[in-house]
């Protein structure tokens, strides 16, 4: 026995998932399923695509059309799926490494094209699957197996990156704010264009241990206490924002969507004939 939600949207035989105790990925994956459920989409109209990483294991558990592809390349495959069948609701599940390191180029160009794909990045600030190497979102000064004395790179703000590259829906939430993840994924799926949701996750096993962040509960407490909603941020004095990061909807706009523009060209030739 399990909940109706899990029964209807997951491949029960594959559960429990392989993620570590207290890994935030499970919470975010559930929120995505609730979002799809609440929007009432037919399961056959949804395609979930991922690359490689702990986060990218998610589609293996989700009972939709699913594709588990190559490291960094989820958006390239998803673009192919969407071009071949523009009626599908295409969701990319990716990690910070998958999306912003090896896959960074795909991210900026999918954003630029404004192709109607919803990307949810499970950002745990590290490469979990391969043992804790630092990623483009590991904060400066924090540690990874490949940065034993502290990371000297500056970290990406993924939302700013996606917005700058042309995404038309950009939002951030966290594993602690599971209902916010759901709401943002719903808004992202309803946006006709490239939507980017950064769901900050927790990796107690590597990021937590390497950086002495405590157990899963302490890491969830951190997410709870270190976030400020973007709507409230303007009204707060600067010192109240120190050490905090922003969550909420950062950007929304209407721009021509890629598959629709492509269809216009096809249609113009079909009319000629």
């Amino acid at each position, binding site marked *: *026995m*399990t*909940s*109706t*939600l*899990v029964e209807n949207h*997951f491949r029960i035989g594959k*559960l*429990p*998932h392989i*993620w*570590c*105790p*207290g*890994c*935030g*990925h*499970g*919470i975010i994956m*559930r929120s995505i399923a609730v979002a799809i459920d609440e929007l009432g989409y037919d399961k056959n109209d949804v395609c979930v695509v991922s690359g490689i990483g702990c986060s990218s294991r998610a589609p293996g558990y989700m009972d939709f059309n699913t594709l588990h592809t190559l490291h960094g390349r989820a958006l390239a495959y998803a673009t192919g799926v969407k071009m071949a069948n523009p009626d599908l609701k295409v969701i990319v599940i990716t990690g910070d490494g998958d999306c912003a390191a090896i896959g960074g180029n795909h991210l900026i160009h999918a954003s630029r094209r404004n192709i109607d794909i919803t990307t949810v990045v499970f950002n745990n600030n590290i490469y979990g699957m391969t043992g804790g190497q630092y990623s483009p979102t590991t904060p400066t000064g924090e540690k990874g197996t490949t940065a034993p004395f502290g990371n000297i790179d500056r970290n990406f703000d993924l939302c700013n990156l996606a917005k700058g590259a042309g995404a038309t829906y950009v939002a951030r939430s966290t*594993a*602690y704010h*599971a*209902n916010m993840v759901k709401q943002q994924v719903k808004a992202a799926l309803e946006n006709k264009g490239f939507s980017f949701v950064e769901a900050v996750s927790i990796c107690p096993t590597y990021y937590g241990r390497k950086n002495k962040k405590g*157990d*899963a*509960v302490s890491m*969830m*407490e951190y997410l709870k206490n270190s976030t400020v909603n973007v709507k409230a941020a303007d009204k707060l004095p600067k010192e109240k924002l120190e050490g905090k990061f922003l969550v909420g909807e950062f950007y929304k706009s209407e721009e021509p969507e890629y598959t629709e523009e492509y269809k216009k060209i096809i249609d113009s030739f079909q009319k000629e004939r």
Partner: protein
Amino acid sequence: MTASKEKKLYVKKDWCKGCNICVAFCPMNTLELKDGKINIKDIESCTQCGRCELLCPDYAIYLGGTEDGKK
């Protein structure tokens, strides 16, 4: 009191990984870990807020229909 509640709180011990998240964030202190697995300590205190279900990474605790299946 329990009879008037709409739903029932279920645990699925074989999926629980003992992370303690639901125990720590339950506002009513309803839950505990017993031998490393989720256990309902005091069902009377549960307000069915759904937070444990929302935050359990392993889907090992949830609110479902009542036992008699009427609701």
